[in-house]
């Protein structure tokens, strides 16, 4: 049979779908093939997955390439362009070629008139206040955004990636992070993934707490 460890077998088995679709790196592919050469069971599973993929991709599957009734594509395009043009009408563009002026453009237009001197005075006041508040925070050292319970002990802890359900409220999100004693170090990214840090010896506990939280969709460890 094989002298591959159960953990390695599981890892290789997890890669089989990507071995079958041909997207593994050359190194991963070589590793999978070496294991397949030793394991008849994995070979049979890989062949089965390849057969599933082939049958799903058969050309007689009318869903496969997104073809549909003549005119449907054109109708969809017209609807799409209608939406774009309606939005342009709703918000007359500052830039004629752009339906969505940026915040800066809108702000500068708004400030272009009589508001400009008033804004300048207000901006100066804000800067002065920021300097005063910053100085006070620096003195007390209380400028952390770490949730209560996470304390400073997370400084060198492992990183986790957390994805929340799309319906999770900000309050639920905050409660989940506080409950797990983790602090946000990055995110949410473009795809809604938060990177959080736990205390060095609390990663497993934090993962368990987060997984039990109804607002959390998935948790995984990024660094050991």
């Amino acid at each position, binding site marked *: 049979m094989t002298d591959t460890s159960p953990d390695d077998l599981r890892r290789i088995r997890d890669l089989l779908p990507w071995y079958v679709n041909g*997207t593994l790196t050359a190194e991963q592919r070589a590793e999978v093939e070496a294991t397949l050469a030793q394991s008849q069971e994995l070979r*049979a599973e890989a062949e089965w997955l390849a057969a599933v993929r082939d049958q799903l991709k058969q050309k007689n599957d009318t869903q496969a*390439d997104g073809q549909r009734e003549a005119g449907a594509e054109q*109708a*969809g395009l017209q*609807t799409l362009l209608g939406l774009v043009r309606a939005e342009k009408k709703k918000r007359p563009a500052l830039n004629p070629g752009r339906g969505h002026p940026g915040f800066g453009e809108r702000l500068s237009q708004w400030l272009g008139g009589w508001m400009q001197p008033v804004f300048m005075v207000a901006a100066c006041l804000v800067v002065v206040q920021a300097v005063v508040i910053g100085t006070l925070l620096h003195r007390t050292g209380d400028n952390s955004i770490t949730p209560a319970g996470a304390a400073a002990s997370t400084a060198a802890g492992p990183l986790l990636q957390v994805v929340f359900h799309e319906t999770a409220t900000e309050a639920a999100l905050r409660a989940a992070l506080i409950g797990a004693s983790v602090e946000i170090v990055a995110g949410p990214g473009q795809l809604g993934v938060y990177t959080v840090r736990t205390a060095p010896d609390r990663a497993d506990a934090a993962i368990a707490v987060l997984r039990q939280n109804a607002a959390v969709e998935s948790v995984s460890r990024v660094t050991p």
Partner: protein
Amino acid sequence: MRRAGEVGVTDTAKTPTDPAAALEAELAVLLRRMAAGDEPALTVLHARLNRRIYAFALRRLSDPDLAEEVVVETLYETWRHAGRFEGRSKVSTWVLGIAHHKAMDKLRANGTRQYEDLGEEAEQIADPAPDTYTRIAQRQQGEQIRACMDTLPDEQREALLLVFYEDMTLGEVAGVQSCPENTVKTRLFHARRKMRECLERQTR
């Protein structure tokens, strides 16, 4: 003034020879033009991607009308947020990620979303008999495969489709599904087990 049919990739220094890479390069250019408000670029992007989005949505929703809605909503969202694309993934992966969220919204609105249970209990199940995979592979039909796929929770079915229909890498599937790569692997693990069990029953 450039007409819709004339929008092409003229501002890339080097056109990739691989057709898939060339398409992605073109999509990136189109996205940049869309971010600058170029409507003809949106028309071309629609031409390049609408079938792929439709097929993706139809497989998720099994409803042609809803799939058409997903196409329009996805490309409208792409237009509105074109400037936010940061180039961390392929454009097509980013767009299908938007389509994923639109399809999920439809499923949720219809109350037909099938939630998954990614518990560990499945790992306790004994391995199948040695000849199980070979026997299923010899007997399974396309119809049976599709019927079994319909029994999978949404995220697992989608992950399987992204790998087998779209031929996406692990990282790309994670990008579309907005989840870590390990979650995708777990989804595929459960999906394969359920498919095997379902096909075992179907091909008996």
